[in-house]
């Protein structure tokens, strides 16, 4: 069996060489062919090596991870939990960070990516069957889905629309929400301080002098001070867009955004 393994290794080395040579020649068809072959051989090697090593160790195949399993909550409920805490549209990265800071269990990043499509499909097949849907935020100008921002369908339309100042306002609001959760002592983890800091460093007056830990009260006050500066302008932009959406869009579109049908008049000139 060991010999087989070495034969496979030789073959892998030869194949890699051939792939790189073909790449240099820009022979894409050959590259594809060789890569497929390479993957096959590598898989064979993995299986063989696996069998060998596990034989040697005289133990049945290792049980799955030793880390504490979180409660078996579907990913969409994890996301809902986080968004409810934040109260504003959020990007998957922030959702993941907040989850790590305050909630037990794992929220694999890969799951977040597929959520949006699943939710829309589910809504279209039986509208309103679920108590809430995770849907994209909408851009204020085109009422189209905003890239990478997730919201909850039960929120008022104004909260799900993103105007020019909304990314900033929502960031500040998220800071307040996170500081609040930290003050309430909601399941603190080592990641909590890191999360607070990541907010505080980007908000004027939110970091304490010296090197001490972040003060959630200070963070809240600093964030609210800046919110006050932007609030009126942001509220107006969102309200105007929400009005437009109510007049022009059907229920599905109000949740998942319009596909680009026509560009509003003045945008089209250039």
């Amino acid at each position, binding site marked *: 069996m060991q010999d087989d393994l070495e034969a496979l290794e030789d073959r892998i080395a030869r194949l890699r060489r051939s792939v790189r040579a073909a790449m*240099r*020649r*820009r022979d894409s*068809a050959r590259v594809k062919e060789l890569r497929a072959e390479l993957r096959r051989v590598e898989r064979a090697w993995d299986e063989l090596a696996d069998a060998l090593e596990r034989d040697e160790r005289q133990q049945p195949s290792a049980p799955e991870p030793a880390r504490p399993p979180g409660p078996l909550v579907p990913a969409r409920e994890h996301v809902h939990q986080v968004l409810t805490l934040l109260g504003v549209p959020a*990007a998957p*990265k*922030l959702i993941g960070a907040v989850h790590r800071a305050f909630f037990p269990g794992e929220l694999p990043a890969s799951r977040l990516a597929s959520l949006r499509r699943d939710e829309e499909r589910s809504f279209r097949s039986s509208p309103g069957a679920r108590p809430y849907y995770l849907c994209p935020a909408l*851009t204020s100008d*085109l009422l*189209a*889905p*905003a*890239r990478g921002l997730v919201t909850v369908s039960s929120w008022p339309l104004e909260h799900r629309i993103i105007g*020019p*100042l*909304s*990314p*900033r306002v*929502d*960031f500040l609001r*998220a800071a307040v929400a996170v500081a609040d959760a930290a003050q309430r002592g909601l399941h603190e983890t080592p990641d909590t301080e890191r999360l607070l800091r990541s907010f505080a*460093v*980007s*908000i*004027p007056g939110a970091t304490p002098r010296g090197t001490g830990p972040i003060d959630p009260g200070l963070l809240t006050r600093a964030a609210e001070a*800046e919110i006050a*500066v*932007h609030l009126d*302008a942001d509220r107006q932009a969102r309200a105007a867009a929400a009005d437009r959406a109510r007049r022009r869009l059907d229920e599905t579109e109000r949740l998942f*955004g*319009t*596909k*680009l049908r026509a*560009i509003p008049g*003045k*945008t*089209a*000139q*250039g």
Partner: protein
Amino acid sequence: MDSLNTRLAALRGGTSPVGFSARTIAGLNENPGCARRALLDASGADKDRIGARVGFPGRFGQSPFALARGRVFEEQIKANGAAQLLRLLREKLGLTIEEAAYLPLEDVGDNTGRELRARHTTAQLLRAAREGDDAGTLFDHPMLRLRVAGCTAYLEPDLVAFQVGGRFHVVEIKSFAVIDGQVDGEQVTAAARQAAVYVLALRELLADHGLDPETVSHEVLLVTPADFTNRPVVSLIDVRKQLAAVRRVLARMSRVETLLDALPEGVSFDLAPDDDGDPTRDPAELAAALHQIPARYRPGCRAHCELAAFCRDEARCADSLDVFGPAVGGMLGGVDTVCAALGLAEGTRAPAEDEAEIARALRHAETLRSGLG
């Protein structure tokens, strides 16, 4: 113009044109005197595949690790309405708290077509330039256009900031590290050149709509990670010199007609792709077509031109001093082959009138050399 485009398209043949990017436009500044590259670039020929077809594949891949690092750092800077960038602009450039609007321009609805995005960008930038207040401070991934040799190049800066001192600023986000305030000079130069192309495109956009092009600052903001961390720092770079260079090279590209006129009838770089897109053009014939246009090879070409290996081989076969680099050629001013230089040194070749001085120096050096035994 159309006749020019037709002639250039004929040169390229049945292959679809390779568009310009800011990087390739900035690259035109390297060795701008090379007619071969000027013509190939202007015609949109695929130099990479041409090089491979004539037996000299270039090596222009970037490591996936480098690409991933660049992507992650840019995402980090732009996350949450570009919160980290906003902090830098406030601290270092005195951006006021009110200026916090953020407009993602990387798509229009779900549509990512370049022309549509360019029009959308134009509308947004013009609105900001005309109305000023709260019409957007940070424009993420705008799509700009620039005319290069009669074609439209689409350019996508990382970000444009407005109202930093009442002017538009191009922001370049790069993942190479600044360590103790020191940074790799070559990488900064490359970033500055690229940013200059964006500044030019932005200025033309404003000028085309009757606005003052000087509203676009000649200072660009370079955002890089500091030391060995992900902590971003911003530096201001004056790109006036690079702007002048880009203008010069674009002007030269628009005079590509004179190069075309010098070309013999029937020269083409057509790869003659078959149904699968694989080239069928006879490599020898293609190489012969390339040889028809004079190149100016330098060892540094390999950093920015896919045909460098081909041109180096040509220079070697021609016994040219170019293979050693421009410094050697400069020292031997006027003499251009190894054979001629050694002939002068060994006295087997009579110097031309303007070679008298270098011939004497070479003979002297050769005497010293042979004296060493």
